[in-house]
């Protein structure tokens, strides 16, 4: 009996387990958050290497390094890895770390589910990446995998791709359920919904989007699987099927997916800008309602990706109007951020630099999105580099910059050390310059008539492609600075205070840096 008592005692303040099992079996939200973040950084570099392979081939006209078959595999895998491997897991990692600490919860609502959600991911990506070594090559039909190119005409590896997508879907849905349960049930006493930090709000809404959208993705890949192996004809015109149906189902998933990749970013920016403006966020309530409106509208705009498939006029008009409407709540968010900065007391540490450039560059991406929404002109923009420029502006200096801003912002809290500020600022400026040199010329290329996803191009596109490739290499290699800075910060550095930043407000800044392995075992009281 004495031994039993002892185990109970040890249990009182156990820290992390030692060795690899700490990471394999962990149910701790901080450990799982860390796993997600490292995994996403790894995928960011894998997907980034593929992007550099693409840009290297496009440096000059003619085929040099990457032949067309491999080129298509690179564009496809780059897209899939960046969307499902880099951006989404990074946001889930940040949510894992921050949501319990922000709402005053001891951990996520379902810690074991949390472990499972993460550990599915590496296996899904091993399956996906293994297709690169298969006979016939990896998926080569674009990350949008339009049928029948992805069914009747696909390489055999498409079946592995479908299986991997299913696993990613399961992981995302479980993660989303966990986040919703945590936010709705584990808030500290006094933490009412309208007191939630915006990062928590945006993630709550994102989680609902995930639960609504991911099953649709699972459905569409299952229909593909049926067409490929079980003789159905969902998307096969020769069997009475409808290739356009694929696009409707796919974009019904993929448009909300676009917002899944940006809403948590909005949340992060809404935490950072008030902190470094030393001023409360302007229009908290309207920020929440704007996010809700964006989430709702994101389900009724999907066919704006399909203006050239031959929709009836009424369909074109409906999707044009609803898409234009999205710019109203998005505009409200941008105006609120600017109003927060206005007459504040601003400083520009690395997180703020990333946040401010997020607002500027995301707005540029939003404005080109508004141009794309205008259906008649979209007939000229559609499937050109103008679109590539647009979605990279919202995803790279949008989603990715918001993630980096978040990492720099919270890294001192996580590690207890300040990162190297000079190096952080150097990383920012190189990224900022690199991103613009890479993606701005793509607007020009698209307007001049360069289609997207081509492995070789006509001579009049040569100059801007060269510029863009140079920018891509600057951007790509400057990310090594980020890796170095993060590793150095984990290993040591100036000690961070509990509050870390002068203007920081919220529960997460009231606990020690680094926080104890288990935070808020006694719920804090929020006034």
């Amino acid at each position: 009996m004495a031994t039993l008592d002892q185990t109970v005692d040890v249990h009182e303040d156990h820290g992390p387990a030692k060795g690899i099992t700490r990471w394999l079996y962990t149910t701790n939200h901080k450990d799982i958050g860390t796993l997600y973040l490292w995994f996403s950084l790894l995928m960011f570099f894998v997907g980034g290497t593929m992007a550099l392979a693409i840009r290297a081939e496009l440096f000059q006209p003619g085929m040099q390094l990457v032949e067309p078959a491999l080129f298509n595999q690179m564009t496809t895998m780059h897209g899939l890895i960046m969307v499902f491997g880099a951006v989404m897991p990074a946001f889930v990692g940040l949510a894992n770390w921050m949501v319990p600490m922000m709402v005053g919860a001891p951990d996520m609502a379902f810690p074991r589910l949390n472990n499972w959600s993460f550990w599915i991911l590496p296996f899904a990506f091993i399956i996906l990446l293994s297709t690169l070594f298969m006979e016939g090559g990896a998926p080569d039909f674009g990350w949008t995998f339009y049928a029948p190119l992805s069914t009747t005409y696909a390489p055999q590896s498409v079946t592995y791709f479908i299986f991997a997508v299913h696993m990613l879907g399961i992981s995302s849905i479980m993660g989303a359920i966990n986040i919703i349960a945590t936010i709705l049930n584990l808030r500290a006493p006094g933490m009412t919904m309208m007191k939630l930090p915006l990062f928590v709000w945006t993630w709550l809404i994102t989680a609902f989007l995930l639960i609504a959208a991911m099953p649709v993705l699972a459905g569409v890949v299952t229909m593909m699987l049926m067409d490929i192996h079980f003789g159905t004809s969902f998307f096969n015109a020769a069997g009475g099927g409808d290739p356009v149906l694929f696009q409707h189902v796919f974009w019904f998933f993929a448009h909300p997916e676009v917002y899944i990749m940006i809403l948590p970013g909005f949340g992060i920016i809404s935490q950072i800008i008030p902190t470094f403006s030393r001023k409360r966020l302007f229009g908290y309530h309207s920020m929440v309602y704007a996010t809700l409106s964006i989430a709702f509208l994101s389900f009724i705009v999907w066919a704006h990706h399909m203006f050239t498939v031959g929709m009836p006029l009424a369909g074109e008009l409906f999707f044009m109007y609803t898409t234009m409407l999205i710019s109203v709540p998005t505009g409200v968010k941008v105006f609120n951020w600017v109003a927060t900065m206005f007459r504040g007391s601003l400083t520009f540490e690395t997180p703020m630099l990333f946040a401010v450039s997020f607002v500027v560059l995301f707005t540029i991406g939003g404005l080109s999105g508004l141009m794309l929404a205008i259906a008649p002109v979209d007939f000229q923009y559609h499937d050109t580099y103008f679109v590539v420029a647009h979605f990279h502006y919202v995803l790279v200096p949008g989603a990715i910059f918001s993630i980096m801003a978040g990492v720099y912002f919270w890294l001192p809290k996580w590690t207890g050390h300040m990162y190297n500020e000079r190096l952080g600022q150097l990383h920012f400026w190189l990224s900022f310059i690199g991103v613009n040199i890479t993606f701005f010329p793509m607007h020009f290329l698209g307007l001049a008539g360069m289609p997207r996803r081509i492995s070789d191009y006509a001579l009049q596109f040569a100059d801007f492609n060269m510029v863009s490739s140079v920018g891509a290499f600057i951007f790509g290699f400057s990310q090594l600075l980020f890796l170095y800075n993060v590793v150095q910060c984990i290993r040591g550095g100036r000690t961070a205070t509990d509050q870390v930043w002068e203007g920081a407000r919220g529960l997460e800044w009231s606990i020690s840096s680094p926080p104890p392995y288990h935070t808020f075992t006694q719920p804090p009281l929020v006034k």
Partner: protein
Amino acid sequence: MRLIILALLSAGLYSPLFVAADWQVNLDQGATEISQAMYSLHMLIFYICVAIAVVVFGVMFWSIIRHRKSRGAEAHNFHESTTIEVAWSVVPFLILVIMAVPATKTLIAMYDPSDAELNIQITGSQWKWRYQYLEHDIDFISNLSTSQEQIDNKVKKSVNYLLEVDQPLVIPVNRKVRFLFTSNDVIHSWWVPALAVKQDAIPGFINEAWTKVSTPGTYRGQCTELCGVGHAFMPIVVSARPEAEFLQWVEEQSAQKQAEAVLAEKEWTLDELTAHGEQVYLKVCSVCHQPTGEGVPGAFPALKGSALMTGDINAHIDIVLNGRTGTAMQAFRDQLSAVDLAAVITYERNAWGNNSGDKVAPSQIQQQKQ
């Protein structure tokens, strides 16, 4: 900071190098009324966007410069205003209405293909376009004419590199031409920027679009929907000609058709057939089966040493004519002339050490076709 200034300066030094090059940054005004309308709409929206950006970024940079802590700025404590929130929701909405009105007008005009004087069916297939003139007995396939050597950087690239075809689509100017789009295999998209026509060619569907070109000229475009390995290599060339020249071209086409029929009757030698067959092979077959005949393992079968190439000749003819369902192998029955088909089959049976010595006569193919 010094580093950045240095980088900017050095970029400035190199800029004269770029000035001579082709730096198109905007849409073309194009050659039709619709393309002009699109261009005006594009510019209108663009200027509105720039205006919005100037205002938003203006306030932002004002704050960045004036309200810095280092300049002793104190944070003001305002953080909520329903009036302002309503204002900056309503004003953008009104701006959207201003955009939506001309956009709707243009879209309605684009969706009116009535009273077309010429109808052309356009069929996409991996990786070429087929044009069928519904009012005339004209039907041909338009292939990329840029040589593989240019793509492989072995010879200098021509001016219209990757934007040139063996046979352009010829249409009359100032006549409303209606296009009907469909596809044989995957989804393609037919785009000529100057005509402002972009429409997906989808298997099992027929889409329509129309154009009325006002200035004669040659207009170039490309496939804009990812359609496989050859996606970058299926350009479109439209030659818009005055009415008289167009009618003359129609005459020439029927004359050429008769000449081809005569050619098919002619007795061909093995050498003539393989020589012609090699050209056809490199143009039509080599993208998948490769110039070496070795194919791409797992994707496209090798022809070199293939049992089909050296075995039953009728099975070989059958697969080339009728394709193989469920694979990328198309039916070439209607895509190639009898002479081309006979030549390419003969070539495949004798190239890369397949040396069967077999010869297929164009007349044999014609019989099979019937």
